[in-house]
């Protein structure tokens, strides 16, 4: 199938992404050589094809945000290593696309993030993801700092979401 048949060239999407993450400007250098795909672990086990993702972005095809594909990237940075161009940072682009997808409500639901609810909670309460069994705990003042740093971050909402689920569960249990 012709990859570029059903959408016209349109730079708006590309510009939006560059506006958000300046490094994305480099994807314009992509020569479609496909080296990134050949070495990509995600491409071996799913239909994720990063060369096509770049193509879609450059054509302004926002359907890429709805595709489940972008959620298959391993962020392993292999593509960055093998790409013949110097500064194309695909994992960063993928993180950016996922962010846009999240904002539009297409991203995986919070239940996909269940493990992260716990981890986020622990991080904001203790400063670590797994309890430190080998040393002292992080002082309270440092934990306050981390909470300040994470103000308005999604990590806090995941935490809140977990609180409301536990509450409603408790309520259910009582009734």
């Amino acid at each position, binding site marked *: 199938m012709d990859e570029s048949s059903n959408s016209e060239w349109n730079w708006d999407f590309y510009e939006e992404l560059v506006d958000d993450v300046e490094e994305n400007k480099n994807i314009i250098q992509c020569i479609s050589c496909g080296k990134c795909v050949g070495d990509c672990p995600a491409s071996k086990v799913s239909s994720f094809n990063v060369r096509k993702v770049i193509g879609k972005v450059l054509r302004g095809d926002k359907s890429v945000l709805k595709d489940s594909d972008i959620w298959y990237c391993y962020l392993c940075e292999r593509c960055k290593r093998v790409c013949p161009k110097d500064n194309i940072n695909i994992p960063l682009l993928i993180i950016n696309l996922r962010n846009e997808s999240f904002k539009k409500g297409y991203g995986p639901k919070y239940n996909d993030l269940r493990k*992260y609810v716990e981890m986020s909670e622990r991080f904001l309460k203790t400063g670590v993801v797994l309890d430190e069994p080998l040393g002292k705990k992080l002082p309270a003042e440092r934990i306050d700092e981390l909470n300040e740093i994470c103000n308005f971050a999604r990590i806090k909402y995941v935490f809140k979401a977990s609180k409301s689920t536990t509450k409603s569960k408790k309520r259910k249990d009582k009734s």
Partner: protein
Amino acid sequence: MNTTNLALNLTEIEEMYPENPIDFFRDKKLCLFKACLEKYFPGVRFGIEDFLTDLELNVMTCTNQSCCSGTFFQRNLITRAQFGAINERNLSEINKIADILLFSCNGCYNSLIRGREFLNNPDVRKKTQDILNQLKNKNNSDNYPGKYEIVDDLKLKLVHDLDFFYLIKNSVVNALKYDLKDMKVAVHYGCHYLNLSRDKDSIDEYLRPKTKLEELITLFGGNPVDYQERESCCGWGASQVVIHPKEALKITFNKLKSAENVGADFMVTPCPTCLYTLSKPEYREKMQKWYGEKLEIPTIHLNELIAILRGCEEERCITLRRKTPRIEEIFEIITQ
């Protein structure tokens, strides 16, 4: 301003101390970056801590260090600037107490190096510093503002445990009580060691095959075996094993299977996150269920392996790992 060059310059040390690179570290303060997964594999921490202590080096951990937060950045739960601020906070605290920061985890190492790289973007740098400046608002302490500044020429230098052990390999070998008895060993470097983007800055570094693990295994009296999936991912993939377990564990399966195919006795890795994915009994069971084959190859972290070879007690190297397939067997073979 180059804010990225935090990595310890290994070539320079080799040139300065051709006989005994360990001497470079004699008057330095060494800090071990605490990796979350050391909770499950305490031998990863003990393995290097005990060794450095025995060498009479000045080694410590930093009470004020938090998790590297790479996992939250990768899952879009914090922004680049927030990730940057967490990094800079850690760097600034550790810079106060140490000269060298050592990493037992590819993920932490990559987080701190990458967090710094992000600061090359002026917008991210400004936002990161703004976040750090705001910390004074809530805490009415004299320390603020300016408690955490982005310092370009940090005294602190970062080094991965694998690079460190390789640099001081003679001292390592001298400290060993046992050897690997010619066992066949498959090495797994892990993506975030293999694919470091800074290597692209020098064509030499970029083209040179990474063979430090193989060389160490040979020095330890083992037999490093080549296998098809040597460079492939462990399957963790920034939580792919949680998001898409069937696909991710297929990668894990192929990797372990490929090492078993060439008769490897065990697999060694310098990363606890890879170790977690490659060894977790629950994942092994799932792989057996989904792909119909039981994989028994044990996996060991480099730091644990060095501890076993040094003759450390079980509690200091493979504690908590008894459920891992055949790990005790390897322990017995080495130490018999």
